[in-house]
């Protein structure tokens, strides 16, 4: 009787198929075995890890205060990793006092040093993780290591370093980022850069100003957007210089920042920006005018209702509705404009703000207008249609407008 191997040899070309079948069956069995073994291993691993986590959590205060000697957990990699993760998570929700305590613990236990070392010496995803973790510690001594990451050849490493610096949330980190984009230009996507700069410049937006004057066009656009996000009253009139800038992003940023400036000064500039040829500059100006919440902004917001851009009209309508003053006068003016799109935007805003009933009641209550005008206004409010074929409400009492 021939052996199995002999039979197999005699199969000829079919032997290839048989080999293939055996291979795939073995592959199937190996995959099944791997899945089962991995499940068992992970079940045990997580059970042990959770138990250890609870132990550490129970003694957390003693651990952070240094009562428990650092050597007891530092030598064991799994424990060290657990403690590091827990501290970094604790940073996310900690107030200033708790953050200081945690940072002191990280410094004393050597975790900050370890994060810095990992951020400098690891490669690939380990380095990316270490860079972000270093940023989360908010330890200023980590900034140089993060700055090195910014200058790495790998774009992912640069992004991770940028995220880390963003987490530092301090002006020193902002300066590092700004210096770097000054040298290298825009070598990362704009949004992560903006995000990092917003976080780091929030405390002192003034750091942006010198860079804004000298940077190239693409970087200025990004910095302009950041300025618009971080502008605070502390910037004062410094943003006015950008209201006439050639870059629309900077004009938009100025418009946005002006919402924090005193209305007396801001309204004039914003009214000019609300007539800008670029739609998003007008949009920012209208939103800022709305934020000022000042009576003097009404004529410009009414103009915004006739804008060619839908979003500008909508925001103008919202701003007018949010004023919640002189509702009837404003409505009369909107109707008198005979602009269907403007009327539509205003009525949408009134409805969204739930002010329709209030406006109706106020129209009914006004004593200065004739019944015919009231009816026209109520009809427009109900139907949303401008009275194109009806007489213009000439009797409109414009005392409010005159007072403006």
């Amino acid at each position, binding site marked *: 009787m021939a052996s199995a191997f002999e039979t197999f040899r005699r199969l000829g070309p079919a032997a290839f*198929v048989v080999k293939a*079948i055996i291979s795939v069956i073995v592959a199937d069995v190996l995959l099944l075995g791997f899945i089962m073994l991995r499940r068992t291993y992970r079940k045990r691993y997580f059970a042990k890890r959770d138990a250890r986590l609870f132990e550490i959590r129970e003694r957390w205060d003693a651990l952070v205060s240094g009562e428990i000697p650092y050597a007891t957990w530092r030598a064991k990699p799994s424990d060290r990793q657990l403690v590091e993760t827990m501290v970094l998570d604790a940073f996310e929700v900690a107030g200033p006092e708790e953050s200081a305590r945690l940072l002191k613990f990280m410094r004393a236990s050597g975790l900050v040093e370890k994060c810095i070392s990992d951020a400098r010496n690891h490669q690939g995803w380990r380095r990316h*993780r270490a860079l972000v973790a270093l940023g989360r510690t908010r330890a200023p001594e980590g900034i140089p290591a993060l700055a090195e990451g910014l200058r790495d050849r790998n774009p992912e490493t640069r992004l991770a370093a940028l995220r880390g610096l963003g987490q530092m949330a301090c002006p020193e980190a902002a300066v590092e980022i700004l210096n770097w984009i000054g040298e290298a230009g825009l070598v990362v996507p704009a*949004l992560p850069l903006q995000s990092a700069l917003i976080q780091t410049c929030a405390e002192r937006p003034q750091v942006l100003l010198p860079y804004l004057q000298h940077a190239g066009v693409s970087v200025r656009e990004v910095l302009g957007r950041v300025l618009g996000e971080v502008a605070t009253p502390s910037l004062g009139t410094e943003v006015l210089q950008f209201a006439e800038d050639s870059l629309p992003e900077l004009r938009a940023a100025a418009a946005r920042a002006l919402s924090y400036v005193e209305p007396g000064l801001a309204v004039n500039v914003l009214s000019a920006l609300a007539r800008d040829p670029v739609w998003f500059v007008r949009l920012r100006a209208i939103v800022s005018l709305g934020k000022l919440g000042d009576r003097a902004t009404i004529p410009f917001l009414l103009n915004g209702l006739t804008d060619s851009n839908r979003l500008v009209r909508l925001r103008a309508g919202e701003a007018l509705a949010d004023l919640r003053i002189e509702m009837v006068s404003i409505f009369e003016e909107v109707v008198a404009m005979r602009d269907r799109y403007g009327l539509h935007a205003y009525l949408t805003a009134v409805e969204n703000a739930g002010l329709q009933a209030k406006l109706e009641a106020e129209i009914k209550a006004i004593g200065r207008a004739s019944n015919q005008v009231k009816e026209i206004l109520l009809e427009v409010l109900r139907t949303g249609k401008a009275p194109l074929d009806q007489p213009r409400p000439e009797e409109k009492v414009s005392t409010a407008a005159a007072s403006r």
Partner: protein
Amino acid sequence: MIHFLEVSNQVLFFYYLLSNLAYLMMLIIALKTSAAHLRHLESIPLHWIKGSPLAPPITVLVPARNEEKSITTAVRNVLDLDYPQLEVIVINDGSSDGTLQVMQQEFRLRLVRAVYVQQVTSAPVRGLYRSDVDARLLVVDKEPAGSKADAVNAGLNAATSPYVCIVDADSVLERDALLRIMVPVLADPKRVVSVGGIVRVLNGSEIEGGRMRRVRLPRKSIEVIQVVEYLRAFLIGREAWARGNMLTIISGAFGVFRTDLVLAVGGYRSRAIGEDFDLVTRLHRYLLDRGADYCIEFVPDPVCWTEVPSDLRSLGRQRARWQKGLLDVLWPNKDMLFRPRYGRIGCLALPYLWLFELLAPVIELGGVATIILAACFGILSGAFCLQFLLFGYAFATVISIGSVLQEELTYKRYNDWQDVARLLSYCFLEHFPYRQLHMIWRLQGVWQYLRGDLVWRPMKRQGLQSAGTD
């Protein structure tokens, strides 16, 4: 005849081998990509995005037609999503049941005059409703047009955000799904024009208050097989194609698109059968025609749970429709094939779809017939014939188990031992007899399309309420 059978058998052998090798390659790419994605996520905690002022606003579009059973759960689920700037537009596509009434009651809708500019074609709108319970919710009530595409177009006209996310009304999104799907967009908003998320099978799992409470495998075999299928399609297929920027489909159940681009290509094609596939293909064409540097991504962790057909008849109808949709898109875009202008899409992705998706039922069923004939005529030895079929079966099973492995290594949604064991056992059933049945349905789809039978046949569904203990 004999010569024909010999050639046919050889063609089928190489076709089958090539198809499985392609999938094996995709499995390897997907395993690598998923691992890289998970590591990448370690450096981007999601709550950063949640608190970021730069997260762009998103409008979630929920087209609904006769969804009175599930609409409340679906809308509540979308409104509860974690995302800083969200607008939700439900499009009632002329439902003949109480879909609108249920929403009116639940969300206290009132008729408003919100801005509605018809930028893309859709059936006339009857009215727009804003919710008094949650101002982010807008309902567009429109005339029926018989297609989801038309409903989505109406939603697009009312959307005010730079990104739109299209979600099916019979689906449930995980709470952080939008944050996760926006990760690639936030990393590179200029290049990333669209992102797809993973769609998983909802049947069998427990839903509470519009939220996934417990993930379980469905009870019915037909549903479990679809779980394996979805895992293979999303975790292997989409992941690998997206890696090479060759993704040609983003599931209609869950995907994010740049609004301006969708409007630029004219929105969804109202008469498209596979509207999701059609839109992505048109986006590719539009962008490649303009030489744009762009990217269409797939992210495997933002999960959308959707109900799949639970009976053979409905499943057959669904698969026939998918095949019709495939043909409906591939045929009009045949001019993209092998044209250098369309890059990898024209030279790799579309030819793959023609050969291994569209023609698969014809080649495979024809091939099996010729093998049997060859065996009958004695051209092929019975043993070899059996070995060949066994080889094909075992190879394909490796891929299916590979998709379960991918799930195990990465996202691990099925925690129960029993579920994993069942999932693995169904990997062995997927390629016999399910695959052959599937091929027949797909062949039916091709036949229906060629006959001009484009009628949408309703599927039997349970609704989200029955998916668990709501």
